């Protein structure tokens, strides 16, 4: 008996070379949804929004929870809710489409296949993201899966979930949310500088140790350090002095100018209120004062000799981007611009 209709046992799709990127907002949102889940619910599930990048990476950028009901053998998903929410999200950002779904809990469970099937109808090859909110292994586990279905001919037999690599980009979250209080300009600066100094100290110490033979030298690190040192551009001392002083004066001028402008505005507002004094005239005086300050500054070329308590090595650690980025051409034009501004206001 020859089979007229050969049935083939096959996986589809056969290749699963995708990876996924998760925006921290998604993790935050999932955690928030879990905290706010209904009393009796064990887990929350929801839709993931994002886009598929040209290289096949799934970029997960947004998410929302979808109410659902789960018993031992069936899962009920609020499809209306899902569609409403999707419509609303598309209004704000039409570029974000469904890319998959998420669920809390460790790994894939039985009901997952059913939900996954539903999402397969919405989008081809959805991604399933699991976030273990229970810390069942004692550590965080965020995993992404795609499903591969095992079929015999036209008949589907089973679905297999394959884990795919996941890229957690936490840059932004680090930047913002791990602080209690928002630092102001200078506080942030101070923190950054302290970290930079610590790094330089570390490298300095490392180099010393190597030189004195206390640590075995590592060529890779050595190359890194020398690259970093070389990335500082060579500027002749006089040129550099001029550069620094120019910029310093610029800053000084600006600070002086605007400090006076602000305090002036404030005072005047108080005494004037209602008597329509000659504001323009006062501004002229303010800015002339500032202009004079600026001129004086330029004349004495105030040699700014303050030093930072810094070790004598000018290197920074592994992969540290060179901070030297002074835009030379800009510096030349700006002082002129400043004067134009002052003149402008004088007129």
């Amino acid at each position, binding site marked *: 008996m020859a089979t007229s209709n050969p049935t083939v046992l096959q996986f589809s799709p056969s290749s699963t070379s995708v990876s996924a990127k998760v925006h921290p*907002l998604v993790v935050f949102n999932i955690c928030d949804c879990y905290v706010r889940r209904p009393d009796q619910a064990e887990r929350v599930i929801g839709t993931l929004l994002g886009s598929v990048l040209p290289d096949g990476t799934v970029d997960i950028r947004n998410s929302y929870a979808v109410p659902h009901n789960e018993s031992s053998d069936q899962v009920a998903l609020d499809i209306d809710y899902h569609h409403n929410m999707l419509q609303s999200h598309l209004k704000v950002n039409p570029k974000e489409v469904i890319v998959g779904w998420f669920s809390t809990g460790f790994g894939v469970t039985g009901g997952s296949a059913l939900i996954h099937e539903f999402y397969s109808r919405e989008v081809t090859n959805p991604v399933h993201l699991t976030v273990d909110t229970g*810390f069942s292994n004692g550590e965080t586990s965020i995993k992404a899966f795609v499903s591969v279905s095992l079929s015999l001919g036209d008949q589907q037999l089973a679905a297999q979930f394959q884990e795919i690599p996941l890229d957690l980009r936490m840059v932004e979250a680090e930047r913002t949310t791990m602080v209690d*209080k928002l630092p102001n300009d200078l506080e942030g600066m101070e923190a950054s500088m302290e*970290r930079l100094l610590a790094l330089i100290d570390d490298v300095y110490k490392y180099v010393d140790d190597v030189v004195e033979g206390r640590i075995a030298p590592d060529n890779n690190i050595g190359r890194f350090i020398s690259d970093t040192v070389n990335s500082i551009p060579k500027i002749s001392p006089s040129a550099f002095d001029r550069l620094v002083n120019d*910029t310093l004066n610029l800053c000084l001028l600006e600070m002086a100018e605007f400090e006076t402008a602000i305090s002036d505005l404030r005072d005047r507002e108080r005494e004037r209120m209602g008597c329509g004094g000659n504001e*323009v005239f006062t501004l002229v005086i303010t800015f002339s004062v500032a202009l004079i300050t600026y001129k004086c500054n330029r004349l004495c070329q105030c040699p700014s000799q303050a*030093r930072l308590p*810094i070790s004598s090595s000018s290197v920074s650690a592994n992969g540290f*981007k060179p901070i030297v980025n002074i835009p030379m051409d800009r510096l030349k034009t700006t002082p002129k611009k400043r004067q134009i501004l002052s003149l*402008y206001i004088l007129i």
Partner: protein
Amino acid sequence: MANTMARSFLQVAATEEVAPPLRVVQIEGLVILKIIKHCKELSPALVTGQLLGLDVGSVLEVTNCFPFPIRDEDEEIEADGANYQLEMMRCLREVNVDNNTVGWYQSTLLGSFQTVELIETFMNYQENIRRCVCIIYDPSKSSQGVLALKALKLSDSFMELYRNNNFTGEKLREKNLSWVDIFEEIPIKVSNSALISAFMTELEADSPVTQCDFDRLQLSTNPFMERNVEFLIECMDDLSMEQQKFQFYYRNLSRQQSQQQAWLQKRRTENMARKAAGEELLPEEDPSNPIFKPIPEPSRLDSFLITNQISNYCNQINGVAGQSFSKLYLMKALHEN
């Protein structure tokens, strides 16, 4: 959850008579991320969204938010927007998100947010909810490693004046209100649920430097500075325009006053003559005369707002200049070594 909510509503109801002043705005990290995402993705377009949360005593908790689609002039679409808002709030309530509007957020460009529209929106919100806050996010500043978030509200005395639409010099003097008193900035506190904190601690990369540090130590601040100064110049222009309006008004006023004086003088001599002649005296006031018609005083709101903007730009320039100082000294030290 429901329990604490009920309690907080009770508290609010109990303290309705003596509403404590708003001290802190407590924002969830989730909300900040959502705001940043929305503002950044659609930058440079300016966007808005709604804040949801709870009002607990002197703390306003912002626990969630959702973005508004970019508005069109079309009326039909505007109605659509209202529907969207209701729909979104209904949906979020279903997944147990606090569905209590506490204000709105908006993005801005270099802090140029102090406009009449902002005040109007604020007044609209204020009519419906007792305590409302506006969160301003500046995406342009984030490239410098600063999280430019601000929580603002209008001061009570300003709102009272605005309701009566009364911005004459006299009223302002009476209230002792100057341009600094229009907006009140409220300190922001960031909070995260324990679950999120746990996740973040685990996931956070163990590197000694962050992207934020790179951004902060960037030496080129001039583009930012230049744009600030450009905006500042524009503001100065506007301010001097406003000033001219006032000068015009005062010139008119003094001319009118001298006319009135002249008229009065004339009337008096005429009356003296009539008295001498034994005739009936003419009244010393004549409302029908056009020179007695009061000239409307121009509103000071605009000039106040412009002054606010100027001060804002000045502060930003100041901040950047201060940072540049430190950076330059650091650079110098590096170079000398």
